[in-house]
C-alpha cells in the first residue's frame, strides 16, 4: 500500500452552496507510479472535484467531511499550505480543459513556459530557454523557435494544447492531472493530443489522472478506470476488465450510450431510466 504514488481513501465532501449536498461519497482509489487512470462520469459525478482536491484548488464552497488524499504517503488535505504549494505544479501538475483560456493572452509562450523552470528550478533565462525549446520539440511542435516568440492568439487550439502539455511536463512531475484535455478540440486533433499525452507519460514515467466523460477515450489511453456517479465509485478496475466485462448495469448502459472513436457508426442509446433508479437506490438518494 505504501508503495502507491497516490492513495485516496474514504474521501467525502459536501457542497455548502447547495445546502450541504454530498458531492463525494466515501471515494477510494489508488494510483501506482506511471499508471494512467481514467476518472469517468457525467457532469456532477464528482470527477472534477477529485481533480481539484488533488491540485489543492477546491472552491471555498466545497467542504471535505472525511477521508485522506495521500501523495507519497503524506496527506495533501492536512498538509501546511506552504508545503502544499511546493508540491503543486512541481510534483503534481495540470493539463487544463480549455487551451483558449489557459494561456495568458498578454504574454509570450516562452515566458509562460519558463515561469515554473525559473521560479521552481532556479534556471537562468538562457537555461530555461534551452529547456523550453527541448520541451516543444518533445511535444512535436515543428517550429519551436517561432512558437516561443509567439503570443497565444497566433497559435491554433491544438498547438496551444501541445504547449500546455509541454508546460505540464516541464518540471518532471510525478503526477499529471488531465482535466478533459481534448473536449475543446476538433476530433482529428483530439486523437493526436491523446497519443501525445500517452507518449509523454511513457517517456517520463509519469502517472496520469485522466478526467473524462468519454469511455472511448478511456479505452484508448487508460490502464485503469474509476467510474463515478453522484460522487460514488460505481465500478473500478483495469480498463480491459471493466470495458470487456462490465459488472454494473450503469457501465453497460454508458458503453452503449457514448459516441465512440472505435465504433463511430454504433447507434446511440440513452441510459435507461431504470438504471438511474437503481443507481439512486444503491447510493441512497431519494
Amino acid at each position, binding site marked *: 500500500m505504501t508503495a502507491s504514488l497516490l492513495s485516496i481513501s474514504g474521501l467525502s465532501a459536501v457542497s455548502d452552496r447547495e445546502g450541504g449536498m454530498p458531492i463525494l461519497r466515501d471515494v477510494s482509489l489508488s494510483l501506482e507510479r506511471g499508471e494512467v487512470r481514467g476518472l469517468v462520469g457525467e457532469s456532477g459525478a464528482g470527477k472534477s472535484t477529485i481533480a481539484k482536491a488533488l*491540485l489543492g*484548488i477546491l472552491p*471555498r464552497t466545497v467542504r471535505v467531511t472525511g477521508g485522506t488524499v495521500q501523495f507519497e504517503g503524506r496527506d495533501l488535505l492536512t498538509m501546511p499550505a506552504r508545503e502544499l*504549494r*511546493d508540491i*503543486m*505544479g*512541481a510534483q503534481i*501538475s*495540470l493539463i*487544463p*480543459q*480549455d487551451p483558449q*483560456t*489557459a*494561456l*495568458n*493572452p*498578454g*504574454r509570450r509562450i516562452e515566458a*509562460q513556459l519558463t*515561469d*515554473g523552470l525559473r*521560479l*521552481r528550478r532556479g534556471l537562468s533565462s538562457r537555461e530555461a530557454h534551452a529547456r523550453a525549446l527541448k520541451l516543444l520539440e518533445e511535444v512535436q511542435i515543428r517550429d519551436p523557435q517561432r512558437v516561443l516568440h509567439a*503570443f497565444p*492568439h*497566433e497559435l491554433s487550439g491544438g498547438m496551444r494544447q501541445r504547449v*500546455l502539455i509541454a*508546460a505540464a511536463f516541464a518540471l518532471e512531475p510525478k503526477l499529471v492531472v488531465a482535466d478533459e484535455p481534448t473536449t475543446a478540440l476538433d476530433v482529428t486533433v483530439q486523437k493526436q493530443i491523446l497519443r501525445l499525452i500517452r507518449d509523454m507519460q511513457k517517456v517520463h514515467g509519469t502517472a496520469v489522472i485522466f478526467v473524462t466523460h468519454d469511455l472511448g477515450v478511456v479505452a484508448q489511453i487508460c490502464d485503469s478506470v474509476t467510474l463515478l456517479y453522484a460522487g460514488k465509485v460505481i465500478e473500478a478496475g483495469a480498463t480491459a476488465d471493466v470495458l470487456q466485462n462490465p459488472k454494473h448495469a450503469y457501465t453497460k448502459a454508458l458503453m452503449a450510450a457514448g459516441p465512440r472513436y472505435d465504433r463511430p457508426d454504433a447507434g446511440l442509446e440513452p441510459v435507461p431510466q431504470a438504471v438511474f433508479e437503481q443507481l439512486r437506490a444503491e447510493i441512497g438518494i431519494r
Partner: protein
Amino acid sequence: MIAVSILKRLLMAAITLFGVAVIVFVLLRVVPGDPIAMMISPGASPESIAALRAQYGLDASLPVQFLVWLKAVVVGDFGTSISLRRNVLELLAERLPATLELAIVALLVAVVLGGAVAVLGTLLRRTPGEPVVDTVNGLCLAVPDFVWALALVLVLGVAFPVFPLSGRINPGVQVDFATPFYLIESLVTLRFKVFADVAAHMVMPVLALGLPLAAIITRVLKEALLEAMVQDYILLARLKGMSSLRLVLQEALRNAIGPTIALTGVQFTFLIGGTVIVERIFAYPGIGNMAIDAVINRDLPLIQGLVLVFGALFIVINLLVDMLVVAFNPRLRHG
C-alpha cells in the same frame, strides 16, 4: 499599417480642430455682449469706439473676420487679448505650463492611487476587506472634483492649515524661472526649497482633480482584474508557484489594463476640463482660471485661443491613448 492609421488619425484630428475653430468662432460672434463696450471708459466718443473696433478687426463681415483670424492662427498669431491687452499666444505660453503640470501630476496620482487600490481590492477579494474597499470607493465615485476641492479647502486649508490655499508659488519666494514649468525646473535645477513650495501649492488642486479619477480607475481596473483572476491561466500560474501579488501584477494586470487605459484617456480629458473650476477655487494661475475670466470679460481673441488649445490637448490625448491601447494589446499590435 500602423503608420497609415496614425496619419489618418492626424488628418481627422486636424479636421476636428478646424471644426472646433469654426464652431467657436460662429458661437462667439452671436454673443449678445459687446466686448468693446467692456473696455472703454464711459462717455468715450463714437469715433474712438469705431477706432477700437477697427483695431480689433470687429468692423469687417463675419466670413472676412474668420478668414483673417484663421490666417493669423496658422502663422501662430492668435491676436491680442482685449481685457488683458497682451498677445494671446504669449499669455497661453505663460499659463498653459501651469495647467499641464497640474493635470499631469493629478493624472499620475490618480493612476498610482487608483491602481494600488484596485490591486488591493483584488487581493482582498472574497474577504471582509473587499466590501470595505468597494464602499469607500463607491463613495468617492459620487464626489465630483468641485466638491473635493472645497472640502479640501476646509480641511487642509482652514481646519488644519497644512497647505497654502491659493496661487502657484509663495510670493515671498524670490526666484527667477527660465521656463514656465516651475515644478520641473525647480526639481531639475535642484532648488528643493522652491520645489517644495511649488509642490505644496499643488497638493490640494492635484488631489481635487486626481481623487475622482482614482476612484473611476479603481472601479474599472478592479472589475477587469477580478474577471482575469478566474481565468485558467491564472490557475496554472498559481500552480507554477507564483505569489498572489505576482499573479495580479504579472499575469492579470496586462490583460485587464486595456479598457482601463482607454477609459483613463477619456477621463483625463474630463480632468483637464475640471482644471477650469479647480484652478478657480485655488486661484491657480493656469489656462482654466484664465478661461473663466475671458468668458466673463467676453474677451473674444483670448477665448478663441483657449478653446483651440483645449481642443488640441484633447485631440493629442486621444491620439496618445489609442496608441497606448495598441501597444498594450498584442492582438492589435500584430493586426
